[in-house]
């Protein structure tokens, strides 16, 4: 929370010496609050004042980086409780837990499979972020496993171990990769914090209650660790964890409570794949910066990455594509032509069905400012005039010889008007994109 002019005034010498160029300390403070002047202008400002003001310029939730410079995973720096207030900034990082008790072949296969878990949706690449290596055996095996996995992938690495020797050895292998050490508790925080600091890693702290989390993050900071991640797993009870995650974000945003101004991590435990997906769904919606899963089934990961894409979409800017004519497949001068909006979801859904039909087709995407067919029609962004104009501008009239335009079934009512305005013959297509393949095949 920003300091007010009066808050800042209290921190100034109150001598009104005018050296800052302002008539009074209060005037200087008011200007500082608006960030219109630099603190350095006052030569007499105290150390405490400096610290308080510097803290103010930091984001309320610290941005944490995991991974090397080329494969950075970012968590934190969120600014709102609800996505409609602005947007959620850094997509929840999704990672997979691999235990060192597995054989090397098995591990290789898993890492390989996890590496293939990326999907294209609505023009965006959906990717996973992290691999978490969990210690179940001795330190030597853990270190070997870290060596093996870090050589196979450039994903961000999480070290799940509370064994000092194991973590220390693993960190040496991971220079420049900024791993996350998971997790410090009241017993081991001194050791793990020292290791994280030495090796430029970040540190997760784990506790059963927020009061203990507070102690731990303060301690970690005192020990020189800046990049901290919070795991609070109260009785492993879902609503409790959601309550705590909510509280952590509120403390950071509404009270500028620095020791809670860090991203959160949720680690799935003793659940089947379905249950993991569902719980992870809660955490994507409610404030997790990082989620670690055991399941790496394609269907599970596809669903979660899709939910993450939805929740983290900027509500002020619907995903749009460039409005123009798109030839799909080996189009010819007699290829069918259909029209839709430039809302990504609509366009890509139509595109998917056109591709599935295997009928070479032109898709004309009209600029509806990212609105879907019905919304755009209601808002008069998808009108006969606009479509007629796009037809002219798109150059489609030079590419094809026929003049038949397929329109979405939902806007069938505009057929007559559009025929008049464009001079094209209007063919009413299906209402739902799913009907496109059979429609195109039966055009004859």
């Amino acid at each position, binding site marked *: 929370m920003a300091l007010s002019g009066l808050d800042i005034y209290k921190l100034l010498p109150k001598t009104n010496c005018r050296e800052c160029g302002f008539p009074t300390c209060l005037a200087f403070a008011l200007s500082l609050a608006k960030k219109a002047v630099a603190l350095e202008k006052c030569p007499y400002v105290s150390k405490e004042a400096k610290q308080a003001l510097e803290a103010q310029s930091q984001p309320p939730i610290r941005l944490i980086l995991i991974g090397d410079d080329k494969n950075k995973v970012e968590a934190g720096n969120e600014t709102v409780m609800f996505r409609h207030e602005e947007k959620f900034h850094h997509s929840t990082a999704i990672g997979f837990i691999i235990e060192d008790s597995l054989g090397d072949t098995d591990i290789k296969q898993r890492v390989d499979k996890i590496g293939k878990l990326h999907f294209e949706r609505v023009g965006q690449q959906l990717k996973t972020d992290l691999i978490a290596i969990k210690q179940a055996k001795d330190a030597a095996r853990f270190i070997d496993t870290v060596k093996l996995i870090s050589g196979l992938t450039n994903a961000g690495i999480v070290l799940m171990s509370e064994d000092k020797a194991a973590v220390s050895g693993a960190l040496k292998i991971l220079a420049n990769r900024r791993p996350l050490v998971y997790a410090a508790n009241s017993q081991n925080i001194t050791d793990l914090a020292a290791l994280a600091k030495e090796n430029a890693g970040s540190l997760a702290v784990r506790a059963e209650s927020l*009061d203990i989390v507070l102690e731990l993050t303060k301690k970690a900071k005192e020990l020189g660790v800046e990049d901290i991640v919070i795991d609070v797993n109260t009785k492993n009870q879902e609503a409790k964890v959601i309550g705590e995650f909510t509280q952590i974000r*509120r403390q950071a945003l509404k009270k500028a409570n620095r020791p809670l101004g860090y991203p959160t991590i949720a680690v799935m435990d003793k659940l089947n794949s379905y*249950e993991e997906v569902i719980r992870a769904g809660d955490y994507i*919606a409610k404030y997790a910066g990082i989620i670690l899963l055991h399941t790496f*089934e394609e269907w599970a990961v596809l669903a979660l990455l899709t*939910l993450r894409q939805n929740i983290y979409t900027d509500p002020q800017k619907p995903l749009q594509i460039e409005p123009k004519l798109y030839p799909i497949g080996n189009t010819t001068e007699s290829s069918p032509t259909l029209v839709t909006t430039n809302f990504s979801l609509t366009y890509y859904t139509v595109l998917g069905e056109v591709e599935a039909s295997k009928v070479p087709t032109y898709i004309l995407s009209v600029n509806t400012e990212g609105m879907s067919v019905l919304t755009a029609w209601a808002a008069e962004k998808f009108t006969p005039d606009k479509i007629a104009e796009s037809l002219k501008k798109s150059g489609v009239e030079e590419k094809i010889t026929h003049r038949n335009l397929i329109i979405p079934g939902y806007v069938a009512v505009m057929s007559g008007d559009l025929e008049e305005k464009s001079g094209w013959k209007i063919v009413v297509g299906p209402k739902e994109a*799913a009907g496109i393949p059979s429609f195109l095949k039966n055009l004859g």
Partner: protein
Amino acid sequence: MALELVKDKWVNAVSVLTIGATKEEGGSRGRIVKCGGEESLPFLFSEGKIPHRPVIAMEVLDVEPDDWPRTLTSAIGPAIKNPVEWAQKCESEFKADLICLRLAGAHPDAQNKPVDQLVKVVKDVLKATTIPLIIVGCGEDKRDNEVLPQCSQAAKGEKVLIGEVVQENYKTLTASVLADGHSIIAQSPIDINIAKQLNILITDMSMPLDRVAINPTVGALGYGLEYAYSIMERARLAALSGDKMLAMPFISFVGYEAWRAKEAKALVLEFPKWGSELERGITWEALTTTAFLQAGADIMVMRHPKSVELVRNHIEELMRG
């Protein structure tokens, strides 16, 4: 020193909607369902009462669905050909809280079934089941205005939840539902202002506030889910802050939306990268539902028995507090 918590303080609660009536109450249901009543945002138990858990209605069609994938129809089994058996199965085997009977066969483009046939399905389903009933029309205004008032009358005394009314077409059905003592579903197109306006129009006809459910129109996972998610969050925040015209429980037709998604239907043969179609479809519905539970949904209308089971267990976990 213990952390001083930042708690939201709200001045209003969501209204409590009751569906179903027992014999003593003039109906024939074995039990009734109450939903809504929240005094806080979803599952934040320390900030206000959450007196009723979210409930699951299972969707039953009066005609055999022709566009549902096999992964879905085979889980329901041969009963899918007969709405009465289907509804019974939802109650006894799939443990639904409610039946949601969708009169798809009323649509002029479908079978355009005569009114008396549709009314008979409603009566038969009521006779064959003991859990409360939701009835939704085919979505074609003219047909719905013909069919639904008759169904409303036939179900008099059962305190059914009937829908849907929209801003351009609400009078006919609202009048019947009001007269027959049922509750109504008010549908708005992902638009908080229309949701509110419609509730004002309905309650102007003297429909009590606690006999209305809001359908804000949801999109499936990957298909506009985020729009409805934020509309629901905004409406619920307004409701808790005192706006009585938005303080009704939400009904979400998650099954209808999720099973239209390509990801829920496509075979693994078509999209090998997407993994098993069985689990994928179930997950698509369950995760769509999960997201809307976090946005404040109260009545989840679902389709697949396995997703229903998963969501039921999840709700139980969430309601442990």
